[in-house]
Every structure is written in structure tokens, then in C-alpha cells.
């Protein structure tokens, strides 16, 4: 895959576009009937518990030249991030991916649609190096499936995004299957991303209630990832939808060893509870699940993360992400250095290229005659 010089070398699977003006930018895409609610309450999920973190939430050097919020200007983002690091493709996640946790599902449906139209108009049209994620309201799975069907025809939309906290049940359960059916049909992965723990209709972010401070909740994003991957496998989603892929963005990686080992062990004793599984749980995970690197785990010995990934044979599952413009952004150069040759290319570009069909860089694609 990497032999070709037209293949991408760096794909960033998690970039967060932001409204330059939150109250105004979405209005052209939102039906008038919802304008007041949007202006006054936004996504309606309220203040995140313990969200105040003193870091402003964004890397402080990412304000636009005009002083606009970080990641609010496509051209500036390309200059500040993608050109600086040689990012061939940037996959946009959000905004408003947490809309599923809003109380009013009709409002949430409208905001999701408007957000998708905004993404096409303002971002995808700005550069062929952008790809985006279809925002849905999964508290209304039938409406979500319709929205995916509507947006799937746009070639710039390459996956569906949901919040890592589910409004109702772990994501393997049957009420979400209409979403997976349409995703599989269009060849779109389903991705989850944290950040809206404990807000709106969500349960508290831990089984023992709420956390006190931002630092505390940020340590525990993986709890939802364990929950959903476990659920997707045991509910047979990957048997029912064998071409479906699932992406866990920003949840970390190293807990995967524990999950695979534990699931396989339990399966050997409790197979009859999940008689539709034909293989070990870890095999389903290896074939259907992807995880992104950021925030990359910093083990005492930098080689440990790579060794762990190799021990559990997860080399084809991991994709680089920066999380630009957030405070815990990962510099691609620093992440690249953690992995040995061979594994490095897979993580920095090849796994994402294969998943999302990004086999040629933009330059290569445009210089090749049609």
C-alpha cells in the first residue's frame, strides 16, 4: 500500500470544526421554526459537570488571524495544521455530535440535519482534503437512518458520528440496528467520540455517579468504549452486519488488551448466552473495530505502547488522530516516533486509507486524468 508515491502518508482521523459564531452560523441551514431555540439554548444539553478546566479547551496558538475561535476557519485550519504537518486528509468530527443527548428528539433531528448541510457548504466545499462525519440524533434511530440515507450520497461524508455516551442503552442493542443497517448498506463506518458525558439525557459518567472535576472525567473516557465494544460484539452486531466497521475516537488504546483477554475467557464459559457468535470476541474486534491514537498513552518506556499493540495483534486497528484544536492535541511528529517502521506507516496513514477509501492523495487524484 505504501509503495505507491500517490498514497497518502498522513491521515488525521479527528479534527474538530467549530462555529465562528455559534448563534449565527447554523441558522441558514436550520428551519426557521427552530431558530429561537437554537439561539437561546444551543444543543440544549447544558453545562458539562466539572467542565471548567482552565485551559480554555483549545490549544492557545490556534486562534485564527482575525481572532476567531480555533478551527472556525477552513482556510486557516489548512494552513495552521494540515500544511504545517503535511496532513493529506483531515477527517472532521462534529460539531454538534452530542445532539443525541438533547431532550427534544425533533429538535435534535433538525439540528443534526442542519449541521450536516453546514458541513457540506462551509467545510467540504472549502477543500478536497477534508472529509466529514454525518451527525445524527440516535435517540430517534429511524430518523437517524433517514438522515444517513440522505447524506450518504455526498462523497465527502465518510462515516457516521455518535456520542460515546448513549442516551438509552449500550450501542449493541437492537434499537440501534436500523442505523447499522443503513451504514453497512453505504459502506460507512460508525464512529463514537466522547465529550458529552453526564449531560442532557445521559446517565452519570460512572456507575458510581458524577465526577468532581474535568481532570477526573477526562481520565475515564474509556469506560464507554469498553461498554460499547463489549455490547456490539455480544449482541451479534458484527454477525448481523458483517461489513460494518466501528471506530472509537479518542478513547485510548491500551485497555483493549484487558477487554480482549477478558471477553475471550468469558466467552469460552458462557458461549450459550451468545449462540450467534461464531468466533472469539477478540477476532470480531480485530476485524470490525478501529481505535484512534489521541490522546496517545505515554508509557514510562516509549516502546511499551507499540509492544502492547503487537502482543494483541492490533496493528491494523489503530489510526492516527490529532484532535486539533483541542488542548490535548497530539503532534503527528511526536506520535510517529513512538512506533517502529512497519507499524508506523499503518498507524499514520494506511489503516485509515483502507477504511475510508482514501487511497490517493488529492494531488495525485487531480493530476491523474479522469
Amino acid at each position, binding site marked *: 500500500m505504501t509503495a505507491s508515491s500517490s498514497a497518502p502518508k498522513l491521515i488525521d482521523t479527528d479534527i474538530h470544526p467549530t462555529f465562528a459564531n455559534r448563534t449565527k452560523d447554523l441558522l441558514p441551514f436550520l428551519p426557521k421554526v427552530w431558530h429561537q431555540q437554537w439561539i437561546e439554548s444551543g444543543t440544549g444539553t447544558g453545562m458539562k459537570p466539572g467542565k471548567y478546566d482552565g485551559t480554555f479547551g483549545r490549544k492557545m496558538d490556534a486562534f485564527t488571524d482575525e481572532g476567531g475561535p480555533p478551527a472556525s476557519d477552513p482556510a486557516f485550519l489548512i494552513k495552521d495544521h494540515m500544511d504545517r504537518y503535511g496532513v493529506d486528509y483531515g477527517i472532521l468530527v462534529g460539531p454538534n455530535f452530542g445532539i443525541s443527548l438533547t431532550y427534544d428528539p425533533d429538535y435534535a433531528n433538525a439540528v443534526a440535519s442542519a449541521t450536516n448541510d453546514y458541513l457540506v457548504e462551509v467545510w467540504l466545499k472549502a477543500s478536497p482534503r477534508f472529509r466529514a462525519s454525518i451527525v445524527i440524533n440516535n435517540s430517534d434511530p429511524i430518523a437517524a437512518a433517514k438522515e444517513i440515507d440522505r447524506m450518504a450520497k455526498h462523497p465527502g461524508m465518510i462515516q457516521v458520528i455518535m456520542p460515546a455516551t448513549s442516551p438509552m442503552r449500550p450501542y449493541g442493542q437492537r434499537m440501534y440496528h436500523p442505523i447499522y443497517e443503513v451504514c453497512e448498506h453505504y459502506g460507512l463506518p460508525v464512529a463514537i467520540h466522547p465529550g458529552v458525558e453526564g449531560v442532557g439525557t445521559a446517565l452519570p459518567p460512572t456507575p458510581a455517579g458524577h465526577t468532581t472535576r474535568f481532570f477526573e472525567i477526562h481520565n475515564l473516557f474509556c469506560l464507554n468504549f469498553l461498554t460499547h465494544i463489549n455490547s456490539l460484539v455480544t449482541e451479534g452486531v458484527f454477525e448481523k452486519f458483517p461489513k460494518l466497521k466501528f471506530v472509537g475516537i479518542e478513547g485510548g488504546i491500551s485497555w483493549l488488551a484487558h477487554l480482549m483477554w477478558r471477553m475471550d475467557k468469558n466467552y469460552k464459559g458462557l458461549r*450459550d448466552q451468545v449462540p450467534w457468535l461464531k468466533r472469539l470476541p477478540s477476532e470480531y474486534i480485530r476485524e470490525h473495530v478501529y481505535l484512534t491514537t489521541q490522546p496517545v498513552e505515554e508509557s514510562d518506556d516509549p516502546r511499551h505502547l507499540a509492544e502492547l499493540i503487537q502482543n494483541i495483534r492490533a496493528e491494523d486497528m489503530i489510526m492516527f488522530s490529532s484532535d486539533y484544536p483541542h488542548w490535548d492535541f497530539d503532534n503527528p511528529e511526536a506520535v510517529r516516533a513512538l512506533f517502529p517502521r512497519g507499524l508506523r506507516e499503518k498507524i499514520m496513514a494506511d489503516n485509515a486509507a483502507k477504511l475510508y477509501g482514501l487511497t490517493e492523495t488529492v494531488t495525485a487524484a487531480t493530476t491523474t486524468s479522469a
Partner: protein
Amino acid sequence: MERIAVAKVGEIAEKGRKIITINGMEIGIFLVNGKYYAWRNICPHAFAPVCVGRISGTRLPSRVYEYIYGKDQQIIRCPWHGWEFDLETGEHLADSGVRLRGYPVEVDGEDIYVVIKQAVANQS
């Protein structure tokens, strides 16, 4: 090879199973669908006494959310971690590459025999 009498036909027919010891090894004798089987009483997983486990049927491989009952009274479930073994083949249902250690069984009149090598190797 040597055959050792382990039970009477009638006694197993009544209870379905008997655990005996030969050369210091425990072996479970089972009557399944009209035939007799002998399996070593050590689970390949963590060395539990697998032959004392519950005997039942199971849920056969199926489509998602489909439930098919089958192999009634043919499955033994290890008393510890629940591994299911097919009493006819010794295979672990979740991984056919793992199996119980078995011995040939012969029935002669009213007597049931297990066939065993005379010199028993070190037990694992």
C-alpha cells in the same frame, strides 16, 4: 492395552454417569443417546473436575437473537467456568480444537469396560 470393568449396564442407565478411578486417574463414564463414553475427569482449561458438571442441552449456533435448543442431555458443563463439552465427541463447543481426553469403551453383556494403556504416563 487392557480393558478394565468399571460398571454394570444397569447402574449407569439409572444415573447417567459414574466416576471411577483407574491407576490413580479419575474417569467419568457416561450414557449418552444409548451409547457409553469415558472421559478423563480433568478440564483442559484449569484442571477442574469436569465430569461432575451439570449435564444438559444447549443453545445451538444460530442467527442473531434466534434461540435454538438442542443436544439435550448431551452437553456437560464444567463445574467451574462453565465450558461446554459435547459428551459424544469431547469437543469444547466454543473451540473445537480443545477437547476432553477420552478412552474407548466396550460393553460385554452386563459389563462396561474402559480400554486403557497398561503403563500410564505421568499425569498432566
